[in-house]
């Protein structure tokens, strides 16, 4: 039997009603090992205005580079209390902020992938969610990352968070314009 996937639709302006119960601003509960980091930023529309009805979801590996998922069969430790999922709505200014641990490197096609978080972006006005990634600054592995290398060099910076004081990084979702964030099609 062969079927076609159901059509995607926008979350609309009232997404919080159905989705806020699972808001997770601290992805790594106390006791989960790893380098703690806070990531903050804004979701900005084509006029540079903050999007107040957006939400991002994060999926990541643990500090050893293993995903809490049965298809990750690497012989690396799992942590019982670490799922690796975060859901963060934007506030009135389009800003978001969450805390997690830096993931370890994970295997990739051709080369190991540099530490990264995968991100889904949802909002009113977006008919299908967008997929992007957050990479870490000062990370030598970024140069060899198989996905970063597919991105035109001038746009790679949109995927790499910037240091913003101790333990804090800044990363924005810019929908249009000169600094438009790179989105992936898998």
């Amino acid at each position, binding site marked *: 039997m062969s079927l076609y996937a159901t*059509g995607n639709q926008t979350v609309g302006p009232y997404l919080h009603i159905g989705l806020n119960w699972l808001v997770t601003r601290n992805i790594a509960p106390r006791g989960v090992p790893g380098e703690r980091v806070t990531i903050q930023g804004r979701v900005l529309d084509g006029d540079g205005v903050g999007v107040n009805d957006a939400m991002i979801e994060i999926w990541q590996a643990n500090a050893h580079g293993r995903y809490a998922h049965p*298809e990750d069969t690497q012989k690396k430790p799992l942590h019982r209390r670490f799922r690796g999922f975060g859901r963060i709505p934007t506030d009135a200014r389009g800003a978001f902020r969450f805390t997690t641990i830096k993931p370890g490197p994970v295997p990739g096609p051709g080369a190991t992938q540099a530490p990264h978080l995968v991100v889904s972006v949802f909002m009113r*006005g977006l008919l299908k969610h967008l997929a992007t990634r957050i990479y870490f600054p000062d990370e030598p592995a970024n140069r060899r990352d*198989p996905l970063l290398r597919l991105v035109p060099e001038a746009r790679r910076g949109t995927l790499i968070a910037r240091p913003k004081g101790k333990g804090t990084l800044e990363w924005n979702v810019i929908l249009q314009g000169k600094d438009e964030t790179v989105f992936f099609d898998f």
Partner: protein
Amino acid sequence: MKTLRGYRRYHPGTQPDYDYPPYRSTEKRHPTQPLVIAPQTLSELTGPLFGWDDVKPTDHDLTRQHKGTPIGERIIVSGRVLDENGRPVPNTLVEIWQANAAGRYPHQADQHDAPLDPNFSGAGRTLTDAEGRYRFVTIRPGEYPWRNHYNAWRPAHIHFSLFGQAFLTRMITQMYFPGDPLLTYDPMFTCIADENARQRLISTFDWETTIPEHALGYRFDIVLRGRDATPMENRK
């Protein structure tokens, strides 16, 4: 690491474009640069999994979240979550949200002049069973106006959020009701180019799940991206 099997790409015409002028909000919110086509890696072939630690067994019944009974027509919405190969997607999280019977959301951004219902919050969730089945008890949502164009009204709909078993199977969709005259005018519905794909967003009346003297049944099956036949390589 054993070889991983990737997911099929979406069939042409079955998914909306990001830039769809009839839905005005897409204008400033669609990417203008082409998306970067990327290989599916371990990061996208895995994804968050949820269980009964996350969801209460009663979370599927939107009519029993308050002291009183919500106003409106009680309905049963049920169906199966399948992949494109026709296999059930078991134990996966399904989240829904919707307007009340008068077409109003309990949300500060909703200023439509229709009554709120103190007995209806409009949100529910559940997990599919081993055969991919899910079931919600709710009330039929009302239509409501929005300011997209002159005299714009959203057809009655229920928002659905699904995860499947990978980052790549994440999906948000909307379920509509059969025979709704507003569908023709609705850019959310018409943004799907393929006529058959559009029709699949409409639930069907279901005699089997209709409960005598109690509630009408509507059936809505959801199909998530399915595995490709060809395995892909994921070297260390």
